[in-house]
């Protein structure tokens, strides 16, 4: 493996990690606050990608500047978070917080099944390709390797901004502090007048938006086709579990670890490419059951 290949593998890994991080951080945020592992998160990712393709395609076909593709990424993500994520929490998940964990998992699985077919009905089964956002930024040359600026610069920068933004949001804003309070102790927070229901709704919408944003960003780099949500939910869970469920900063590091591991495997042992994320997760959990950055829970009798 020469220097250029190593550089390529690193670039691939970082670009990929940035995308997976966006989805995994939404998943881990929702879990951290609501203690629900949302299987339908993969659908948010897929719908975000589909909607972006449709919006960008429509705007360009209508004769507007292709540069509008960038703001449209945000529009698509926010739309999915509000229109798809919001009602799911408000009308469905709210009713199941008292049920056992296994059933909660199944409810989100049912939502996932429903949304899979919704995608099929709205967008059909043919793959879509809409790479204007990728092509507009052109290529850059680093270490003798040509790479797209979108993947090498934009994606990692956006991922870091999301990470910093999320941290500031949780620590500095009132809404963020309310979320942290409810995470820490729901009962105590409710007793001092915090509306926990509202906090849950906000958290879920933010989490869903992040997942959809991952899909929106990914839509320019790959073809959008059925099944992408199913693959992504498993992968983003691997990232979130490796980091420790509920760990936001940890998810960034785990995403890098898994992204790089996967891209190096792609160049060295292509058969193992899909396996590497799971192997990393299993290895980490074997040594640290609560994940790299998680803390062990005390047992209740």
């Amino acid at each position, binding site marked *: 493996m020469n220097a250029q290949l190593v550089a390529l593998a690193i670039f691939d890994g970082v670009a990929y990690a940035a995308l997976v991080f966006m989805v995994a951080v939404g998943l881990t945020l929702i879990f951290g606050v609501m203690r629900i*592992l949302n299987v339908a998160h993969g659908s948010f990712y897929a719908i975000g990608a589909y909607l972006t393709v449709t919006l960008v395609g429509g705007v360009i076909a209508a004769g507007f500047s292709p540069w509008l593709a960038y703001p449209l990424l945000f529009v698509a993500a926010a739309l999915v978070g509000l229109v798809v994520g919001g009602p799911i929490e408000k009308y469905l998940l709210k009713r199941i917080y008292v049920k056992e964990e296994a059933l909660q998992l199944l409810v989100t699985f049912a939502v996932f099944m429903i949304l899979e077919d919704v995608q099929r*009905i709205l967008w059909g089964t043919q793959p879509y390709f809409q790479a204007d956002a990728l092509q507009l930024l052109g290529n850059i040359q680093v270490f003798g390797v040509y790479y797209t600026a979108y993947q090498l610069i934009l994606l990692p920068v956006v991922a870091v901004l999301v990470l910093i933004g999320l941290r500031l949001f949780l620590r500095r804003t009132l809404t963020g502090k309310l979320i942290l309070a409810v995470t820490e102790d729901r009962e105590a927070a409710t007793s001092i007048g915090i509306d926990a229901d509202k906090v849950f709704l906000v958290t879920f919408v933010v989490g869903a938006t992040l997942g959809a944003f991952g899909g929106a960003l990914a839509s320019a780099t790959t073809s959008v086709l059925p099944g992408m949500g199913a693959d992504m939910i498993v992968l983003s869970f691997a990232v979130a579990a490796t980091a420790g469920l509920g760990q936001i900063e940890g998810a960034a590091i785990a995403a890098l670890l898994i992204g790089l591991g996967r891209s190096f495997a792609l160049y060295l042992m292509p058969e193992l490419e*899909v*396996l590497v994320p799971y192997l990393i997760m299993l290895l980490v959990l074997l040594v640290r059951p609560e994940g790299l950055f998680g803390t062990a829970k005390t047992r*209740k009798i």
Partner: protein
Amino acid sequence: MTLRRVVPLLLLVLIVLLPVIAPWSKIVLTLALAKGLAVLGIVVLLQAGQVSFGHALFFAVSAYAAAFLGQAFAGGELISMLLIGVAASLVIGLLVGLFVVRYRYIFFGMLNLAFSMIFYSILEKFYYLTGGADGMQVARPSVLGIEMERDPFETLLFYGGMVLAILVAYGVHRFLQSPLGNMMKTIKTNETRLEYLGVSARSTLLAGYVLSALLCGLGGSIMAVAQGIVTPEYAYWIRSGELVFIAILGGAGSVSGAFVGALVYEVVRTYAAAFAADYWQMILGFFLLGIILYASRGLVGLYDSVLQRFERKEDRP
């Protein structure tokens, strides 16, 4: 004999007779039987409150083991194929089980999922061994050295499977009432107390896990010979979800629910796939939501409450 006993017995007789009246139903019923056996494995784990999102792994391990044996011995033999399938799922169940019984709930479910996805991608990527995404053909095996035509073979598979399923269902029923079965239930209600009694929760769960892997394996190898083809899709996580779905549909934690659920599911799926191919998954999703939100005891629970209403009417003078 009470009404409570009569209806299931009639249903059983109907299912046994159905292939005689309508030969096309044989294969659908056999597939339902195979799935029912696998769902029984999920039911065992549900007793301990654990949901595995990766039990399709054992389904696939066993199906592929049977397929490899069939290929190695030019056609193969039915009984030995079933045995090797079950043995393979037992060994893998023990290995995976040793690792996953350290976890509970979400981690338990998702780690199982990770293992099944590893196996899925191995099946798909190492195509020179496994045929990749196209899978492997499973030729119709002989039975104890006797070559059979397609029709009698399918008949044998169905009735043989039926007898096997009844025996296995009875066995699982007894297991759940045994001391070990009751300890499994304690893992759900209060694990720490179980440990205070001096019982290792991990080895209890491991025993249940291996049993559930074995049951899934049995279903998998029957499915392989019934369908005549095995594909990596057997191990896909949606398949695992399907098994859990059927367990909840039938009635979480009940042995009869596993088979009732599998039967209803397979029939609905066959028709829905023909008439509403684009949204049958959506229908299933809404069904699952309805069951969890409004009828948490599943089809068996619904049947129970209908019966109770009848019996109360009879009691009145």
